[in-house]
């Protein structure tokens, strides 16, 4: 037996929405909600949130399951997977920690790209604040800059034309990276907004474009033809950043021709 006069708690409101409330208390909660519009609004907002989640993610259920997730396939080739013994796996699972993810095999490519984005963002931070010496070779010597960086890096380095995006080439420099030389180019808008383009040798042949952010810096990066590119900005919104990255990408695509 419950007492109608016992106030409904926050926990009970959640339990009500999640169908975790004892059946005999539901009526009390409904009566409470009828006379407490604030609580009713909250409950309603949680239900709307659940609807949003389902609207957003339920379509995944209907997607065709990718081949790599087919049970037959996974059972047939278990030795390909670089895991420890079953016992170790289970132990890790039971204590919920440790081994496993870091020991992942070839699919762990993102970590290499992560180091790359760290370098790209650090270089950006280091040089965009420079007023007098932001670059080694000024943008006025564009063709010399391109030839020099191409020669030192070993892949074709182009300083893309970004005037359509309102950006002018400030210049570029050569940088060290864990994967050998890296090229660094800086662009500036009339209002002083600076973007940098960083390229280095990539472990991955090609990847889709991805976004990473750290602090105020954000970057769009991708690999193509064994070279990884990052377009870095400070505080640019996503629309602006992707506009610039798209322009860079389009011109890099055409570099072969």
């Amino acid at each position: 037996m419950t007492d109608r006069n016992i106030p409904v708690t926050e926990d009970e409101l959640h339990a009500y929405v999640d169908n975790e409330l004892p059946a005999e208390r539901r009526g009390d909660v409904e009566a409470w909600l009828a006379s407490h519009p604030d609580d009713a609004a909250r409950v309603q907002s949680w239900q709307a949130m659940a609807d949003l989640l389902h609207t957003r993610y339920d379509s995944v259920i209907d997607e065709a399951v990718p081949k790599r997730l087919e049970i037959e396939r996974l059972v047939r080739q278990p030795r390909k997977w670089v895991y420890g013994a079953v016992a170790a796996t289970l132990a890790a699972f039971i204590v919920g920690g440790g081994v496993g993810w870091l020991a992942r095999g070839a699919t762990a490519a993102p970590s290499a790209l992560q180091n790359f984005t760290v370098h790209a963002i650090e270089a950006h931070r280091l040089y965009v604040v420079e007023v007098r010496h932001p670059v080694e070779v000024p943008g006025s010597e564009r063709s010399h800059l391109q030839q020099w960086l191409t020669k030192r890096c070993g892949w074709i380095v182009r300083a893309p034309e970004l005037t359509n995006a309102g950006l002018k080439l400030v210049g570029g420099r050569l940088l060290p990276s864990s994967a050998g030389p890296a090229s660094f180019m800086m662009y500036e808008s009339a209002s002083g907004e600076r973007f940098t383009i960083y390229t280095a040798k990539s472990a991955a042949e090609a990847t889709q474009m991805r976004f990473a952010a750290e602090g105020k810096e954000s970057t769009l990066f991708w690999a193509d033809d064994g070279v990884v590119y990052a377009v870095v900005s400070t505080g640019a919104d996503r629309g602006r950043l992707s506009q610039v990255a798209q322009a860079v990408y389009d011109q890099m695509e055409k570099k072969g021709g």
Partner: protein
Amino acid sequence: MLGKAFAPQDSCNPVPMSAFRQSVEAMIPALRRYARALARDADIADDLVQDTLVRALRSERLFLGGDVRSWLYTILTNLNKNRRRSLARRPQFMPLLDNNPDASGTEAEGRDIARALSTLVEEQRSVLLLVMLEGLSYREVADIQGVPIGTVMSRLARARAHVKASLEGERTALRRVK
């Protein structure tokens, strides 16, 4: 519901799939949904599901019965926790475009909820998704996370408050800017 009737042999050819494998297979779509919401990036999400399946299948003979569904959610949740731990202090990765064309729903709302989820701490996001998206009970989520039910409820309450504020904040912010 599974009993102990696992095929004794490990051979894979035309032997009919064991009840265990069938129940694992039946869970793949739901695991993919959970992983997608948990990790945002579709590729990373499927990596998580794949690792979960590999582990589950490897442990088939050690599985002593019980609820396969909860067990799979547990593995996936733990794998994701480990993944995030190894990513800590590195730049946060997000897909540029939600690289899956979810047809339904208004796009902007979908982005809002995805962004709101990404601002939650790991345990809260996991509780929120397991309860609200996957429909698990508080008891099941408590077992998955290895915490008391009270902890599940407080995580859920905080997660809901945070997502609600984030959704509302986003809308007002957008209105102000545009």
